[in-house]
């Protein structure tokens, strides 16, 4: 079980968090202008890298805030945790 550092509450057990998948996937500006294929990309397709992955988490059983993290999907280790709106930090896995 991971110990995940909520940017506000500090380190808490993994069970307090909810995984939100890939980070930085913006809702399209104008969905109506997209082709079916482009829209499908937004709705269903997410990266699935083996290695560093920027993803979203919510501290659902704590402060209920969403935040972002870069985590290595091979080792599961969190490489960085950052607040929404901040840019993905450069971290080596």
């Amino acid at each position, binding site marked *: *079980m*991971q*110990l995940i550092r909520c940017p506000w509450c500090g380190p808490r057990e993994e069970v307090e968090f*909810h995984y*939100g998948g890939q980070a930085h996937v*913006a*809702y399209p500006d*104008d*969905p*109506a202008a*997209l082709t*079916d294929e482009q*829209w499908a990309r*937004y*709705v*269903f397709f997410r990266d699935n890298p083996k290695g560093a992955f920027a993803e*979203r988490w*919510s501290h*659902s059983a704590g402060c*209920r*805030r*969403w935040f972002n993290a870069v985590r290595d999907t091979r*080792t*599961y*280790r969190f490489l960085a945790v950052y607040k*929404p*709106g901040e840019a993905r930090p450069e971290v080596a896995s």
Partner: protein
Amino acid sequence: MRVDGYGRIDRSRTLGFTFDGRSYTGHPGDTLASALLANGVHRIGSSVTLGRPRGISAAWSEDATGLVQVEEPFPEPMLLATTVELVDGLVARGLGGQGRLAEVADTARYDRMHHHVDTLVVGAGPAGLLAARAAARRGERVALLDDRPEPGGSLTGTERIDGRPSREFVADVVAELATHPEVAHLQRTTAFGRYDDGFVLALQHRTDHLGADAPRTLSRQRVHRIRAGRTVIATGAHERPIVFADNDRPGILLAASARDLLHRYGVLAGREVVVFTGDDAAYAAAVDLADAGAAVTVVEARPQAPAHWAGAAADRGIPVLTGSLVAGTEGAPGDGRVSAAVVTGADGARTVLGCDLLAVSGGWNPTAHLFSHVRGTLAYDPALGAFRPGEDLDGVAVVGAANGTLDLAGCLREGASGERPPSADGEPERTPGAIVWRVEGPHDRQFVDVQRDATVADIARAVGAGMRSAEHVKRYTTIGTAHDQGKTSGVLASAITAELLGVPIEDLGTTTFRPPYTPVAFAALAGRERGQLFDPVRTTALHAWHVGAGAVFEDVGQWKRPRYYPRPGEDMEAAVLRECAAVRDGVGILDGSTLGKIDVQGRDAAVLLDRVYTNMMSNLAVGRVRYGVMCGPDGMVIDDGTVLRLAEDRFTVITTTGGAAKILDWLEEWVQTEWPDLRVHLASVTEQWAVFPVVGPRSRHVISRLFADLDVSNDAFGFMCWRDTELDGVPVRVARISFSGELAYEVNVNAWYAPAVWERLLAAGEKHGITPYGTETMHVLRAEKGYPIIGQDTDGTVTPHDLGMAWAVSKKKSDFIGKRSFSRAENTDPLRKQLVGLLPTDARTKIPEGSQVVEFCPDGALPAPPVPMLGHVTSSYRSAALGRPFALALVKGGRQRVGDVVHVPVGDALVPAEITSSVLVDPEGNRRDG
């Protein structure tokens, strides 16, 4: 055999126990294994496939063979006799490969405990004790765990540390640790798994050793969940057996284990002893066993015995046959115990040495399980002939024998972690061992995994079959998959495979170490999450009232909701027909408090709602209510409910009971991650408000009677409006929302007052026959009106259009979540499944929910499968209002097919049913205003 002057058992007291139906005695401090050996019982059970006799092969958890079934005090399968502490009245039997589960539930308690420490030390041998002491002296919070009943690890008591007997050293350290308030020292506690971020799980045996005195209030076993800043693995090493022919007999033990049995329990496991070794440590066993009265011969694989030990042996008249190997054994009839060792001398000559104990040492395997659980890599160490931790891991230190350091001085030094280590007085210097994994002989009698009956022949076959990896060999031979998980056989299997393949063992590696280190009872892991504590039960403020009223409850997620309130003699059907009739003809009342409620506040509240609902919410007037549907980006309905506009900048969003938490999370996710610029705040008020729909043509009387200030006329208080009033000074919000088509008022009040307001409503409605009704009646009433239940009439593949709710999908809004998906090819198909009504044409048959709908079969029989399906029945009830059963169904192109008769297979019958509109009662909507 028990020898005087040895052992730390309490010989002043006697314990009685039964094994394989016979009675024996032992002493406090014994294990079942030591007591059996003391009583001369060597055969414990038989092997899994070959049925060969099996005895005790080690003194603790690395034993591969001494498996027993405990029958009393409570049946427990497959325990090692070496780890079962003897208690009075214990009943056990030997096993032949499989354990037996009890037939009755285990009533013992199990629980968990969380810990946070700076340093966790696993193993209270010399290395671990010092590591814990050093951390304690640094003022850290420390946990020290050890799986044995007493601390000290493999110190036998014969060693001298800092000039004193080693047991005194142990006692001193333990006493010092006890003076540190922030040190937790737990014996009988096995760290069984290491996970990320310093998380270690350990199982403590708390009461079994207390026997009949065990307090029932205490948990029998406890899982400690430890978060450690630093983990010191000081778990020691397992002695390694050597593979030779017939190496599986009772009476063949690891050498250090034989010695351990002597010093711990005063048990001499044999009188005529052959010690077979290529490693120095076994000489200590030879010497101690000889001193205790055994006749000992050492078979030394190396050309020369180490000088120190050669002298010690000579002093005691112990012959040392150098350059010799044990190539096989003979066994006694009866219990199959070893009776002789067949020795090949340096000159190749064979000698048969009679013996009743063959003590073997092939060297040591560091106990690196915990290190590698989180994928710490192991490296082959040629000097050890084994694998040891091969990299540095953050937050982990490996010390002592676990690190491959075998001399006591080295263990003390590594444990002391920088403090001045105590001295290991008189410890002879270790000389290089001979790495002997296997002695040539008949492959099919050379056991590698003694528990799985797997031999060198099996490995040879695997290799011959084309297997080139340790993992394949494991799976082909099953080596390492038994109860002991290859603690002693794993390295041997790799070594022998490598030998047969002609590759270096380091290329082959080991198979993977996986938690748990030793087996853990399921119940211990379940902890207290059993029975009614298995999962939270959620109840409303009225629960006690419902129970008192005889409600039959339904599980809705974690909630307990009244499903119906049977009167004496009523079954569900009768109760529901009565409740339905009462609502349609008079007035009923429901506890709707479980509905999800979300307070949406802020300047941009309406903007948010416009984005998440398919219809428009921003143009809702204050004081009014609107029904809305939410979809996922894929356009499928995820929830529905009403929205109350409380103020320009404030709404209450009502969700389904099941959707409450999910929808709040959903909205938060959008607000926080996608639209942080929106000035809006969300808060759950699900439990703030108790909600009681008062429903039926007479509901107005009830409401006006209780809330005299409220003008309940249709003009003053129209459908889909809400009004605030109060009751004895308590604010009450009443909303005209109807989920049944009837005139209805939903009474909302601070849940503090829920029982009081409910009672008042009942009293106010008494003369109108107000009838409490449950979820089943609610479902019938809404189904009669064609109102879907999300999750029952939908399944994540249904759009609002499919539900006939195109009217709730805004055409004006440029976008909302899900809108873009509606124009995908699949979603514009006229043959999509649509929600319709279904009336069995015989007007009698209630079609089971879930039934499939097929085309009408003119000849009255189904065609051969696959039979094309048109859809399925989502809801089905008997209707008091219609006087017949009816159903809702999702049917392909259903709305175009109203009037068609289709078939519904029910059991072996085909039930004809007519497709109708989904609204069956009061399609004109005349009843909602009373």
